[in-house]
């Protein structure tokens, strides 16, 4: 059964940045890179989700959010393994339910269980445990920060690495001019096929859209899944100050559609009016520089463009 969104919730929507919860749920001081886009996404999400939370984490950059003896979170944290955060969330959820039902734990002691995992964990070894958990209708929120590679280990190819991107394990060479020759997995589509009660993509550049989606999800039960585009200055090769610019270009070029899936429908919540050419996005990142120099690879750029065009054609009004 799926929760429906009440009208009153509509009313209390975030409209401007000053509506955001002024409390920071993640204290500063972590070891993540300056300008990390994923951290901005998680920060905004946690502002909505609050402190009665337990975050199960997969091996990845965000494991460094809590390094002994420090934790930036007001809520709880459990580091697991690269493919283990979702089953751990299952264990915690089940345990809290049992304690409330069988042992009289007061409802006020309940926690919102959250999974924070990178795209590599999510698309690769964590995919099957997550599929199973959605199938079991596990009541949890999944926050996948998508920096399109294995960032923590130094930026190697993951199932989310896009076509034409250089990673340490998909280098571009004369024989392999594209770098990554595979297209990014359609995680949204994969998850959507499980028909979860709520599924959305978000961008740190769109705090209002992001906050409203988390707010909506917070009022629901069952698996609620988020993919957050996470511009990564270190791995993608751009100046940290440009994190939001890159995030914006990802949306404006149509490369990263901002959408949600609810009640069986996909809705684009931030639809680019007129899509910019993809190269506007690509050219600003070192991981795509081989598409522009020493020789322009129009063929590969055109392929990336046509993939984006094909995506949006499905949703032409």
């Amino acid at each position: 059964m799926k929760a429906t969104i009440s009208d009153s919730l509509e009313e209390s929507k975030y409209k401007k940045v000053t509506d955001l919860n002024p409390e920071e749920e993640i204290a500063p001081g972590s070891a993540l890179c300056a300008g990390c886009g994923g951290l901005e996404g998680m920060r905004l999400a946690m502002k909505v989700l609050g402190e009665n939370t337990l975050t199960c984490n997969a091996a990845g950059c965000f494991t460094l959010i809590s390094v002994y003896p420090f934790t930036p979170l007001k809520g709880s944290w459990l580091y697991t393994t690269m493919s283990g955060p979702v089953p751990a969330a299952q264990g915690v959820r089940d345990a809290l339910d049992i304690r409330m039902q069988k042992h009289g734990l007061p409802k006020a002691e309940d926690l919102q269980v959250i999974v924070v995992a990178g795209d590599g964990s999510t698309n690769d070894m964590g995919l099957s445990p997550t599929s199973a958990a959605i199938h079991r209708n596990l009541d949890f929120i999944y926050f996948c920060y998508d920096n399109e590679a294995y960032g923590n280990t130094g930026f190697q190819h993951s199932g989310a690495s896009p076509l034409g991107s250089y990673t340490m394990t998909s280098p571009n060479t004369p024989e392999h001019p594209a770098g990554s020759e595979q297209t990014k997995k359609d995680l949204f589509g994969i998850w959507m096929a499980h028909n979860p009660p709520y599924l959305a993509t978000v961008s740190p550049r769109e705090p209002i859209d992001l906050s409203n989606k988390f707010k909506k999800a917070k009022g629901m039960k069952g698996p609620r899944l988020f993919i957050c585009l996470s511009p990564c200055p270190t791995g993608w090769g751009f100046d940290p100050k440009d994190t939001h610019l890159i995030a914006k270009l990802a949306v404006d070029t149509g490369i990263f559609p901002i959408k949600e899936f609810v009640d069986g429908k996909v809705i684009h919540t931030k639809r680019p009016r007129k899509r910019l050419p993809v190269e506007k996005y690509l050219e600003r990142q070192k991981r795509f520089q081989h598409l522009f120099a020493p020789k322009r690879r129009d063929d590969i750029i055109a392929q990336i463009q046509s993939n984006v065009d094909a995506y949006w054609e499905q949703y032409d009004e």
Partner: protein
Amino acid sequence: MELTRNKQIMLTGNKAAAWGARLAGVDYVPAFPITPQTEIVETLAQWFADGHMHGKYTNMDSEHSMFMAAGAAAASGVRVFTASSSQGILYGLEALHTIAGWRVPLVLVNVSRALATPITLEPDHNDVLSLRDTGIIQLHAETAQEVLDYILMAYRIAEDPEVCLPVLVNLDGFYLSFTREPVVLPDEAEVREFLPLFKPSQPVFQASEPMARASAVFGGGNYSYFKIQHHLAAQNVVNVYQKITQEFGERFGRFYDAVERYRLDDAEYVFVMSNSFATKGKAAVQHLRKNGIKAGLLKLSLLRPFPSQIIADALAHRPKVAVIDQNLAPGMGGILYPEILKAVYRREDRPQHLLSVIGGLGGRDIQEGDFISILQRLDEAPGDDPLFLFDEKDLKQFDQLRQIAGFPREARIP
């Protein structure tokens, strides 16, 4: 089924394991099936569905997921039981190391089955011994009764405020998992007195107690601290175990020790064995004794922590000792042999001869004749090379299969 006071009924080793979980008042069972463990999880699923057990049974998607869920639930304050075997243990190995370091109490059962490759079904102990360095406590059972009793005691050990570690109870696939024998089912109320319902001795996840668990630790010194503490806690279980088995014995009349000394007192020949095949060893001892040979058997029950001192005491002044490993570390030999060597090394009263025997691999039976061969080898003042229990019959049978499989190949090439 109604529980009557200390009733004896016919149970398989697997059913005894399930009864152990039920009598322990387990709250939570994350599960995944594998032969020969399946009967345990099927039984528990049924009992939860029937309302004989309360809490939750969750079908997981793999053993890795299952152990993660088990550990996380234990960190969240419920009594957890789970079970696996063989490939499942290997698949979950990462998770098992991980949750052992979390220092959370839970009980898991391993139904031993040999490891691929070749894939097979019958038991040896390479699966459970692949966990020997996890810091998980290990109790190895010979009988269905031991399976049940160990599980009850395992919860007491795991949840002891000084311990807080997963405890594994091992039983052999087929030879014990599927073998029915009479088991005393203790009275539930009496069990509850021995093992009250779970009260976590350390903080668990809930809104009023925010905490970070298992955060990354950098710096070798800091890492060492946690590892050494894990070691000290595991080591201490030798004492905790003795205290708990004593209490169990007084309450239920069945006394256990870290090892069982079977006719050891005047034994000139000792077989060191574990698990269900120890029964065969005892039979051999009886037979040999009838023929005037002073044989005895040392059964290892508490495998982790390794009770070195107790073992060295038990083997003191025994002249000839054969360590029968039902496992093989290729390129090294038996896994327990060097551990026994370590236990006795410093002792003046250590055995004169220590023989390494490898047998029972993949469920290969260990027969009377094998024990005689072991005696003979012991009399020859053995060296370090292991004696393999593999006989002419085995070879003949294998060679037949080999021919059917198309060997030797030259014979088939026209």
